[in-house]
């Protein structure tokens, strides 16, 4: 069972490292023909406008949308969450998302890098201790539709993690903190579907 990491741009190597540490057989995905061999996909942190452009230019966006619609487990962090959102706010002109999550996500919701931060979040869905979360020019889930479920909020009550069926999205980056519970939760979805 192979798990893919979208490797167009961003911190895909960090995600691959986490998934391998958890015992997954990881492959990088840059082309449509690499998609059918994976049982799950992580969309990494990075620049969503760049990933969108490359995914469309190289014919990956359509097959990705189809795979998401047919139930492929996908976990997106930061830019990956933006890619999975049905609605993107503050997108660049012409930017498209893949969709799948019934949410509206605001890109770069906290402002410049000077407003990037770390904090602890209680996330009952993954259990245990609070999770240390790193937000880097992070997006926020501005509204959660009836089909999606909020998993975590920051102190001011805004949503930063969502789940909908086989889709999972976080504004923050578990791949850079060494806390792998979200990746384990995601791999559980992959295993359950296989």
């Amino acid at each position, binding site marked *: 069972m192979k798990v893919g990491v979208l490797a167009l741009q961003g911190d895909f190597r960090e995600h691959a490292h986490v998934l391998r540490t958890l015992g997954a057989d990881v492959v990088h995905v840059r082309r449509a023909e690499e998609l059918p061999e994976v049982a799950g996909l992580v969309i990494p942190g990075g620049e969503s*406008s760049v990933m969108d*452009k490359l995914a469309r230019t190289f014919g990956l966006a359509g097959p990705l949308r189809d795979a998401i619609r047919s139930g492929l487990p996908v976990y997106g962090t930061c830019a990956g969450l933006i890619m999975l959102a049905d609605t993107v706010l503050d997108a660049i002109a012409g930017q498209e998302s893949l969709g799948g999550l019934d949410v509206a996500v605001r890109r770069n919701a906290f402002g410049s890098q*000077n407003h990037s931060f*770390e904090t602890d979040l209680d996330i009952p869905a993954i259990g245990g201790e609070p999770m240390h979360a*790193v937000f880097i*020019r992070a997006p926020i889930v501005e509204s959660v539709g009836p089909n999606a479920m909020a998993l975590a909020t920051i*102190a001011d009550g805004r949503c930063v993690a969502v789940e909908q069926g086989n889709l999972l999205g976080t504004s923050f980056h578990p791949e850079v903190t060494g806390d792998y519970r979200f990746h384990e939760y995601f791999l559980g979805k992959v295993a359950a579907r296989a």
Partner: protein
Amino acid sequence: MTESTSSEQFGSSRVKRGLAEMLKGGVIMDVVTAEQARIAEDAGAVAVMALERVPADIRSQGGVARMSDPDLIEAIIAEVSIPVMAKARIGHFVEAQVLQALDVDYIDESEVLSPADYVNHIDKWNFNTPFVCGATNLGEALRRINEGAAMIRSKGEAGTGDVSEATKHIRKIKSEIAALSAMSKDELYVAAKELQAPYDLVVEVAETGKLPVVLFTAGGVATPADAAMMMQLGADGVFVGSGIFKSGNPAQRAAAVVKATTFYDDASVIAEVSRGLGEAMVGINVTDLAAPHRLAERGW
């Protein structure tokens, strides 16, 4: 669902280095106007470097090169939603304070500008805004990291369109890292002395086989193949300075460099995107530059 349990922490190393992690596999482009910034964002730049003159013009016009006008930087920040970087002179901590106050996303303490201090670099730990610094070798990179740099770019010879210096320096850094990894523990003390770098950082590099921060490359990259070569040599991403907006068709060339950086190991993609790009920047051969005019030699 419950609320967060602890307060927020800003400006940590993890947050500063983290932004560079998210830029990996991407292209950062020099821009001198808001209009160029728009072209860069539309072409798929992962960030832009806001400056008043690209290195090729700094080189041809001469004189002291300084931090850009705050109006220009703000106009560029207002134009795009990708991260905006800006340059301060080596050692000019007040220019860096100004750039932090302008809310730029990254400060480049850059040898492309005229140094303000020929002894000290900026104490980068004093800032909330992260810094990227240039390096020609591993020791220089580790000294910058020790001063608080959150990202390193190997230096090339900016403003020439000649990629040979960038090649030399990324190879040098990569081979010095490989050499450290192959050493036994008792050899690292002397290695630290010879690199003129802090022992703890030398040990970290030896153990992990990589820099503790992201390593981009810069200086002289002018074509998609140049960018792909830097990636194949082990760069995490690429800065393109004069190479885009000093060329015949900036929008198309910028998009081509972005694609070649993602598909750096696929010659058929690089061939495809390299077609019909028009004039590359004319360029200067580094070997024709007298030593005092070589920017990469600034910084220590």
